[in-house]
């Protein structure tokens, strides 16, 4: 008897997992959605962000049962290598990834921002990324990519 139902990337899954399992492990290990990254498990680095009912949220520390009534979008639900989302294309154009480990969480945060506000100023962008960390120092390229994406979405 499946214990948990989860709506991820437009598809409903019925899963036999402990309902206290943090969402990220269900996404990665049960649904095979490995794009969501485990960084700290402490809601401090943003690598694990997913979109929950339109808002970017941490997935590393909240039990899966808390998401049962929500609609979740992961990085895989935003675009694919053959069909990049405009935000992802902008990241490629600006070469906005080094090791890339933080990038899915950042793109998720930006997708949630641009869905609500396609024309954000610098402060809003930095606010949306205030709890996303990048250690390679790709910040400049990432900010350029976000602005490029915003411009193309607003066209």
């Amino acid at each position: 008897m499946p214990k948990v139902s989860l709506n991820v990337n437009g598809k409903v899954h019925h899963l036999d997992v402990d309902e206290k399992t943090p969402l990220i492990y269900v996404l990665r290990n049960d649904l095979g959605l490995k794009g969501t990254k485990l960084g700290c498990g402490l809601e401090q680095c943003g690598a694990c962000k997913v979109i929950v009912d339109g808002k970017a949220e941490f997935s590393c520390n909240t039990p899966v049962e808390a998401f049962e009534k929500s609609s979740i979008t992961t990085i895989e639900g935003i675009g694919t290598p053959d069909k990049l989302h405009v935000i992802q294309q902008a990241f490629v154009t600006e070469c906005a990834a080094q090791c890339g480990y933080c990038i899915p969480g950042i793109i998720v945060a930006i997708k949630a921002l641009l869905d609500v506000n396609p024309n954000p100023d610098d402060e809003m962008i930095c606010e949306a990324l205030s709890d996303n960390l990048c250690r390679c120092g790709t910040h400049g390229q990432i900010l350029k990519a976000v602005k490029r994406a915003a411009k193309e979405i607003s066209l």
Partner: protein
Amino acid sequence: MTLSSSFGNNPDLDSWLQFHRDGRITVSTGKVELGQKLTTALTVIVAEELDVDPGRITVLTADTDNSPNEGYTAGSNSLESSGIALRQASAKARRALMEKASEHLEEPVENLSVTDGEIGGATTNKYVTYWDLIGDKHFKITVTDDVLPKSPDQYHLIGNPVPAVGLEALVTGTMTYVHDMEFTDMAHARVIRPPNYHAQIQDLNDTEVRAMPGVIEVILDGSFLSVVCEREEQAIWAASKLARITVWDESKELNSKDIFVQLKNNPRQSLPVVEGVAKESPVQPFRPPENSSKTLSATYQRPYHMHGSIGPSAAIALYDAQVLKVWTHSQGIFPLRLALADVLGLAEDKIHLVHVPGAGCYGHNGADDVALDAALAARAVPGRPIMLKWERADEHAWEPFGSAMQIELQASLDDTGRVIYWNHETFSDTHMSRPSAHRENSRLLAAWHLQSPRPAPPVKPTPGFHTGIHRNADPIYDFADRRVVKHLVHDLPLRVSALRSLGAYANVFAIESFMDELAHFRDMDPLEFRLAHLSDNRARAVLEAATSKANSGFSSADDGHGRGLAVARYKNSKCYVAVVIDLIVDDYGAIQLLRAVIAADAGQIVDPDGLRNQLEGGLIQSASWTLKEQVKFDDKGIVSRDWESYPILTFAEVPEIETVLIDRPDQPFLGSGEATQGPTAAAIGNAIFYAIGLRLRRIPFTQDRVRDAAAEV
């Protein structure tokens, strides 16, 4: 032509390049991709030399069964070693193929040309392709020094922007890091570390944990404790429970006295450094010349810094039929194999390591240690692949940190204000503790805690050219007389190893801060003062390019605005970098970086976007170390165990960066990945001085430090 030293162990052309019948080319390298875009640069080099579309090329990174052994991917050496090796191998392959084509087409080699692997002649309509000639076959020749690669004027790819390899996978989350690998029947493990380096297990009753859901095995070997479970969250819960119930003997504490006092008072070995090389000879006394009119002194300090990879270290190990296979993000799988063989008592040929990318590591972090952790777990649960990940606190508390350093400088000036004597002394622990074969000892963490422990080997000074402590200790300026001393200090409290740029970060910080202090003392412009002591034209060119760029299009008359400049040549032999920083210090002592300008000369540019990313990324990382970072510890252990207690630079805090690349197509390419670390720190310190008149000599320059410095005035 001198052949790359990488051919020493691997002279066969076939070990570097394979042509396939379907038109693909696979390239092997002993180096690994760390997010530094090495794969892209190597692709461009091979595509250029062979005249093929870069899309045909796949770069396979290191695997102990299939790759050339090129040691570590470290020290900004990869392009200079693997890049040159692949260029020479490709040139040799091209020549061999042209000779085959010449026979085939009955046309002399000098009449042949190549377009995307298709060889045609000047007087014939016939053509033949690389894949026809050698597809799925072997050359069976060695790379020799008689084939010259192309000259730069024949290039059409190198130096132009190319799409980085694999970016689509990175931005869609489809890139497979070692953390993402999945195997049938894979189990998950976590390790439970002691509260600190010295603590040992006194008592553990694991009955309750063994009864928890999904627990397959609790592994206890001495004070090494690990748990293997069916599911990942079960491993986390079981590990967390084990951490709570284990009783540790914590009677031996860390020495948490002021680290800079320890650096001066602990036993040490001192070696003179001459032209970048430490010598096994007595240190000459400090003796400023008699004609000096003034000698100034200053002391600079950096704390322990952390690599702080965003992805905690991870490895997968499978122990099956007496053979151990490990998937690892280590920077050196061949040396790691030696280290694992020692600890596990396995023959080297029973261990197969495969490199799989991890998150950026910036030096020697937990990547190698976690490979041993996973191997120990796999040995206890044979036949099942074991994924072992560190938790965030493991990474923060157990990675080998970048060494704390103290640098003491003196400069003697003559009547005209020229520096005629320079004294540089660096006090530091080692910067090089990467694993290798150490017999009864080991540098792998878990080995220290086993029932039959293998403690870390004693640390010895490394005499080489610009190695750890004395990397960039020898200034690039034309000082007539100089004395450079490295002091390897023993018995320091924390575990340390290579962190991006090693000693260069703090040595350059000290030198370039002191140059500014001397300029100020002489009432000279910092740029003019540097140029007056600098005859290296490439160093002069980056200084001038950076200041000229900084002067155009930016000015600030705000209170608390300051601009700082610094320059260095990494390892005195690699990439030249000058950095200009504009920043503001507010009334409360908070620092905001406004803008940074980098001017760099990395010789011949292979991939401009990749180069820019490395330089700018290094600047941001260094700014983060310099403004915010410090490993905190007390006598019970490491205190900074998460991102709140060890904050790093955020998006709101990064400056706008402009980078000027000076291309030197006629010069060899120079390693660049660590070149901005030192100049950035000094440029920030110098900018703070011009902003508020306070000279900060102890990193990090936090708001509290600025306030303390202001209070001291």
